[in-house]
């Protein structure tokens, strides 16, 4: 095992998140109640996804600049783990909203039509689908160099699509989801107490480091596979 300080740091930050995340005093909000603690889990998935996509984007540019195939592999694997985090964010969000957004006078099924209109959900779905298309595009090209080049270019496009789909359009439209016109969700100093921020920032770092760890493992495995094919 490659022992690195950041792997240990990531694990320690997550242990801290799991303990402090459940024990600290949180602001009382009649609608959220204790579910406000999901900030340390659900929201961190999205932050992790964005950071992993940024790393993937940087590797795509690096590949286009120097043509080193390691960057192509890295770009692909970081995008893959980013999509995993995004899907987990979606699933946890679905659980969270079904206890906080649902009209108490209606069933979950009957209030689905109003929830499905949420611009944040649609934007995140578009972003994830654009990245899913990245995987499809890659696998549909046989030639290794062509695949690497086209998918690196597409990766840059997919990253650019994150701006309108999750950072701009959802903030222009009315939404139940926090962080609309008032600023960044959870990063806004008005809607997260000091106590929560003490856990929230380490939680983002911890989850992201675990995501990076998984991605590096997949990259190393991929490189081993390619070397096997070369021989």
């Amino acid at each position: 095992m490659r022992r690195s300080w950041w792997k240990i740091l990531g694990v320690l930050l997550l242990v801290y998140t799991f303990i402090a995340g459940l024990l600290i005093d949180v602001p009382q909000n009649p609608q959220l109640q204790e579910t406000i603690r999901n900030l340390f889990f659900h929201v961190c998935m999205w932050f992790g996804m964005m950071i992993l996509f940024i790393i993937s984007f940087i590797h795509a540019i690096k590949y286009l600049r120097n043509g080193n195939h390691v960057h192509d592999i890295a770009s692909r694997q970081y995008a893959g783990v980013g999509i995993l985090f995004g899907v987990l964010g979606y699933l946890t969000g679905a659980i969270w909203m079904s206890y906080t957004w649902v009209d108490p006078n209606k069933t979950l099924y009957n209030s689905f039509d109003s929830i499905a209109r949420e611009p944040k959900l649609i934007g995140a779905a578009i972003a994830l689908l654009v990245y899913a298309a990245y995987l499809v595009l890659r696998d549909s090209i046989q030639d290794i160099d062509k695949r690497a080049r086209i998918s690196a270019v597409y990766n840059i496009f997919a990253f650019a699509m994150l701006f309108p789909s999750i950072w701009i359009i959802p903030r222009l439209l009315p939404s139940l989801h926090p962080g609309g016109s008032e600023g960044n969700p959870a990063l806004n100093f008005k809607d997260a107490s000091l106590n929560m921020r003490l856990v929230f920032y380490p939680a983002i770092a911890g989850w992201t480091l675990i995501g990076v760890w998984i991605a590096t493992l997949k990259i190393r495995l991929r490189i081993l596979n390619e070397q096997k094919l070369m021989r």
Partner: protein
Amino acid sequence: MKKISALTLFSLFVLFANAQDSKWTKMMNGTGKVFVVIAVMLTILAGLILYLARLDRKISKLEKNK
């Protein structure tokens, strides 16, 4: 393997520590039994991290062998 048995021992400890009337039991039963949730979450986290660490070690071995 050693670490996995340690993990199993930890969860068994949480299980059987319940039988004795101790400070531990008092803590686990306090504040709406939220510590039970923490124990469950930490066990799952530990299991996943151990899995990752083992995978990491296996890949390192493959890298050395080539």
